[in-house]
């Protein structure tokens, strides 16, 4: 017996809601919020790679810019948490517009290498910028108030706000993927020549997708800066670009649930294995290699294929 995909996705969403409701009673809330930030980042990246077929190797530029802009907005410009995050999203989206315009002039592996080099440009710019504090980054970012009433320094308050934003993001990504726009983007991924012959301006669709992905990555970075109360050079470093690729790869490229699962696994690996020191890199590297060699569809992709449904 087969179920309609929409019903399965609804069930998955209910399970996700249940998890974010129950987990804060057993798991450290900061860790859960960190997972949500990276899950948003991974969903944004997957939107581009999984549904657009565009492999960016420099997405830390948008996540990191988001992180720094939200931190700067909240600490120096007197923005509230929400204003800071919106500020971060707008600037990351603008950067995405510029970088997408440049990088989309090349394809495939060239696109990956160019996005990596462009991200390095952002890394140096932030490293050099006066407001960004060099090696120290921006620390002691205030969480502030929500709508002037709710104190976000309380972990429960900020958890509820983050959960709502995270669930909203999940629905938004679902909506984008299943919209006519999403269908066209998938059509371009599978056969660009055909999409062009039907009359679609494929370059424009790819650029819109890139900007969307960059904006959501900025949201992930901005939220991260607010909850952890700092922005560091790691946020904008190529290692972070690699990490988001790994999250999506492990979870399952082109699946809806994959990026969330992948982000949860990688953040937990990072936090619980921190005592391993440099061996964490070796563990991450091994996961990368094993997934690429043996397990290219990732966890959710493999489960989905076994069950014959798209998750």
């Amino acid at each position, binding site marked *: 017996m087969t179920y309609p995909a929409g019903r399965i996705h609804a069930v998955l969403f209910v399970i996700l809601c249940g998890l974010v409701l129950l987990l804060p009673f057993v798991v450290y809330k900061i860790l859960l919020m960190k997972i949500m930030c990276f899950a948003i980042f991974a969903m944004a990246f997957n939107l581009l790679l999984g549904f657009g077929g565009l*492999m960016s*190797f420099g997405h830390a530029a948008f996540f990191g810019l988001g992180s720094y802009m939200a931190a700067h907005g909240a600490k120096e410009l007197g923005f509230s948490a929400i204003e800071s995050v919106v500020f971060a999203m707008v600037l990351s989206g603008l950067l995405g517009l510029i970088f997408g315009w*440049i*990088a989309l*002039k*090349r394809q*495939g*592996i*060239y696109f*990956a*290498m*160019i996005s*990596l*080099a*462009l991200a*390095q*440009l952002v890394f*140096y*710019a932030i490293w*050099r910028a006066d407001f960004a504090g060099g090696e120290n980054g921006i620390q002691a970012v205030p969480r502030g108030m929500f709508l002037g009433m709710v104190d976000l320094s309380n972990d429960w308050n900020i958890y509820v706000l983050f959960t709502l934003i995270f669930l909203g993001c999940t629905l938004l990504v679902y909506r984008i993927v299943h919209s006519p726009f999403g269908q066209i983007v998938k059509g371009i991924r599978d056969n660009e020549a055909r999409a062009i012959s039907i009359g679609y301006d494929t370059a424009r669709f790819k650029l819109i997708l890139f900007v969307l992905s960059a904006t959501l990555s900025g949201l992930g970075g901005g939220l991260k800066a607010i909850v952890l109360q700092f922005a560091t050079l790691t946020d904008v470093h*190529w290692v972070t670009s*690699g990490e988001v*690729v790994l999250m999506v*790869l492990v979870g399952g490229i082109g699946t809806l649930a994959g990026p969330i699962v992948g982000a949860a696994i990688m953040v937990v690996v990072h936090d619980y294995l921190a005592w391993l*020191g*440099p*061996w*964490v*890199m*070796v*563990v*991450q*590297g*091994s*996961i*990368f*290699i094993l997934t*690429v*060699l043996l397990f*290219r569809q990732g966890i959710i992709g493999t489960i989905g294929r076994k069950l014959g449904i798209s998750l």
Partner: protein
Amino acid sequence: MSFQLLAGQLVLGLINGSFYALLSLGLAIIFGILNIANFAHGAQYMFGAMLAWGLLEYAGIGYWYALPLVFLGAGLLGLLTEAIFIRRMYHVDPLYGILLTFGITLMMQGVFRNYYGVSGLPYSVPASLSGSWNLGVMYLPIYRVWVIVAAVVICFLTWYTIEKTRIGANLRAATENPTLAEAFGLNVPLLKAAAYAGGVGLAGLAGAFAAPVYSVNPMMGSEIVIVAFAVVVIGGMGSIKGAIIAGFSMGALEGLAKVFWPEFSAMVIYIVMVAVILYRPGVDIFGRKV
């Protein structure tokens, strides 16, 4: 601004350019023949430097013997890496190749960091190349001249091997049309393995050249590989000549930028890359389609 400062930075820039050229050359060969963007190139460069350091530290083998040994050692590492990992990427989307080599990079850096930390290990300039020449207007360290000359010679030899010899002709045939090359009796898998090993050997050799100039540490290859990627894009992906010319000229340009525009010197190569992409969409610097 003094002439001394300008000339000094130009020499420094050409040194960096030598490393960019050697690394981009290997990347271009590997990309051209295997269609793999070898992210591990930086880690393999680091491996070469660590190997040169280790040979001296543990076995007392000095610089001159270390150079050929490092080339062979890195080449062997390349052969093993190709046989165990890279080979499995030939029939899947090339994007997985960059992910796989990224994983290899993390593993290599992690292992070396665990044993040697992140602070630099000292490797002194060999006695035969220490000291500097007094040119009247500036002092020219002999080791730097040696690195630049050696890099030019190695680049030329590699270019010559690929463009003018029979081995090179076979390699180019395998790149152009692997199926047809195989039908003519060429051992294409062997050629690919050799190309990867050669590229890695060049990266290792560059690392050995770098050991006395930069500090030897496990992260030393992590930034330079991204610069090398940008250089390869500027020179035209897979173009050997383009990689060499772009490598040296980008090094020199970066050196000049340190004089005129110090805050932005680290960015100048990426800016040139953007200009090349925008100004010549779809073609490399020789006007060929990419």
